[in-house]
């Protein structure tokens, strides 16, 4: 029959195992969250011919801000959208 001291040892071992697996899970989760990064993109569009261009966000950008001339039809382009995209994991 199992003695009390053996039962305690078994319980302690189980607790230790639980703690170690929990720690590993927390570590993996943190690493996953740290890796999830975003970058902000500005999408410029010409409302006349539909030409679009993407570039990185610059301070001062806002949606509907007039931008440079359209390289295709020479009409005035505007910032159409500004959004965050996930940066692929390295």
């Amino acid at each position, binding site marked *: 029959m199992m003695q009390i001291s053996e039962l305690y040892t078994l319980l302690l071992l189980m607790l230790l195992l639980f703690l170690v697996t929990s720690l590993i899970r927390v570590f993996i989760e943190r690493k996953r969250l740290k890796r999830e990064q975003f970058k902000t993109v500005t999408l410029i569009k010409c409302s006349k011919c539909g030409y679009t261009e993407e570039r990185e966000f610059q301070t001062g950008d806002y949606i509907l801000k007039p931008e440079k001339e359209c390289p295709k039809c020479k009409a005035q382009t505007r910032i159409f959208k*500004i959004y965050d995209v996930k940066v692929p994991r390295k």
Partner: protein
Amino acid sequence: MMLWIRNIKMHLARIERLVKDAKKKVLDVLKKGGIKGDPEKFLNTYLQFFVIDPVRDEPTNLMRRLEHLLDIRQKRMKLGLKQVLPDLGEFTRNNLEIMIEAARALDLIYRIVRHYLMLGQKTNNWILIMQLELEMPQIVKLAETYYKALDAFKSGKPVGDGIGALVAATLMNSGGSAIKKEIVEDTIMGVTERKGRKLYVIKAKGPGGTVGKPGEAVKKVVEELKGKVSRIIMIDAALKLEGEKTGEVIEGVGAAIGDPGPEKFKIESIAMKYNIPLDSIIIKESLEEAITPMRKEISNAAEKVIEKIDKALEERTKEGNIVVIVGVGNTVGIAQ
């Protein structure tokens, strides 16, 4: 209990660091803007600024009393910022106002967690400590969300909550040039035509960070048109449940607006007064996605919302009808 207390203290230290960093970011903007006087003293005044809720046991004029208090609070903050930063542009000042709000929320979280921790220790109340320990991961996540929001408002990037404003701005500029005017404080109305219907499109005045007064604007437009509006369509971001897809667009009825009450009350009242059907379209997102830079999937939902508006116009209104469209949400980074 000792382990729980240790863990809570560890999380609390993390929140404290976020509060300090947030304050530093706000102070940097204040200093950069050329603040008159002591920036820290100015910030501390607004960090613990409070509004006392109106008496709710007596409901007479409750919404008007609440609106009055909220107006006073906002005007006081705007005036305070204008006095110390007179040369800063209106939009940057609006963004700074929201940054102070985010820092205030963070500071409040920190002080509340510290309060319950100290109270639990003082009274040896293990139930209080246990509850706090179990809630800590969510509390830290909330604090981190407010911290991330600071960067969006600092750089003037559109946030997820601005999807309603984005749809309104797109509609205002889709059918040729709409006639636009500031109908009430910080709120723009544009008149345009779509599918043979006359649209009165309402949104907050951008690109600074503000939500405007959409309720007051709807009330004014409907009253000016003597109630001859065939439909009111509201567009807003709504909190999704865990497991739901970000950017999902769904329809319903009622006033889609998450204000403390006065704006929603005005829209419901005016719709009821003239018996105008009130439709709403919501875009699902999490709290984090709502106050941090707009994700691509949320931005892409704008086209889906416009498709639903077109369908609603064709199916539920007739040619020549007048429809009021309200894009609700913070318009930071979105002009009109």
